């Protein structure tokens, strides 16, 4: 089947991509007050015994947030963890609520596209 090619993670490329949408992402990440009011707007959070890992804020802080924090210098293992978050824990239904109006789905989608570009995406073995 479609074997996922193991390729070197190109951190330069990630950095370049981060730069493209730096303003919006950094602003969104920096103003998040960690208030957790977004939690209940995610039906996955409600369906999974209110497990914090399904909170919209948790998902973006630990995906795109993590990539930004390390300025793109992430390794394959980190990206694979992020893959689990952005594909398995989020369906991009775009319905999360943020009291400040932070565009969470866009950040998840951006994390997805960075992962995809690095050859890290859901495979058929999952």
């Amino acid at each position: 089947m479609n074997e996922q090619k193991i390729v070197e993670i190109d951190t330069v490329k990630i950095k370049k991509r981060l730069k493209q949408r730096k303003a919006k992402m950094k602003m969104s990440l920096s103003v998040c007050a960690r208030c957790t009011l977004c939690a209940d707007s995610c039906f996955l959070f409600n369906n999974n015994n209110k497990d914090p890992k399904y909170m919209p804020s948790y998902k973006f802080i630990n995906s795109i947030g993590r990539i930004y924090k390390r300025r793109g210098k992430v390794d394959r293992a980190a990206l694979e963890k992020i893959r689990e978050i952005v594909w398995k824990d989020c369906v991009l239904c775009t319905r999360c609520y943020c009291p400040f109006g932070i565009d969470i789905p866009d950040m998840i989608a951006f994390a997805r596209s960075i992962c995809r570009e690095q050859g890290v995406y859901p495979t058929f073995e999952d």
Partner: protein
Amino acid sequence: MVKGQRKPIDEITGALEKYSNVLNIGCGGCVSVCLAGGQKEVNLLNAELESIYKQNNISKKIEGFTVERQCNMQYLDELDDIAGGYDCLMSMACGAGVQYLAEKFPGKPVFPAINTVAIGIDREIGIYEEKCRACGECVLGYTGGICPVTRCAKGLFNGPCGGTNKGKCEISNDISCAWQDIYERLKGQNRLDDILKIKEPMEWKNQTQRTIIQEPYMKRYT
């Protein structure tokens, strides 16, 4: 994605009349994106129903649950332990989701709370526009990316008809003539040759239920 719209409340209460224990099932897919059938809408509809029943002194239990997508059995399986306790199910998914849910629980009445309207696009949050009728034989390549099946009231393939009225459709001044738009776009791209050819009658592929098997999976299923 698929676009839907909630049914009028009277129709919903009418459908549920004989049942006292209802599970309202939302869908986190397309209908959630178009603000018609996600978790939030499930909660809203349930609250609305509860207040109606309370007003009329009817005792009914209405509960909600939202699955990732109702068009995939894997996600419907989440309902195995839940659905048993209800005497009817209501689905806020598109027509496909409702049918798959009904197939999963053949012994239970399943009612739709949504009218599935179209395959469409998000113009803005809350404004959705039909773009495709899933005719099964896409002609967008020669019509400049404007669908005559969806947009032309008569579904003409060799338009525009004589009723075009200053770029508007004959049936309404609010609808722009699809074929005028096709003409303008192709003219801009210097591709008018495309519509000079006579387009043969369609082979309508949406006349019977269709099943598709993607090429790489042919071997697996045939």
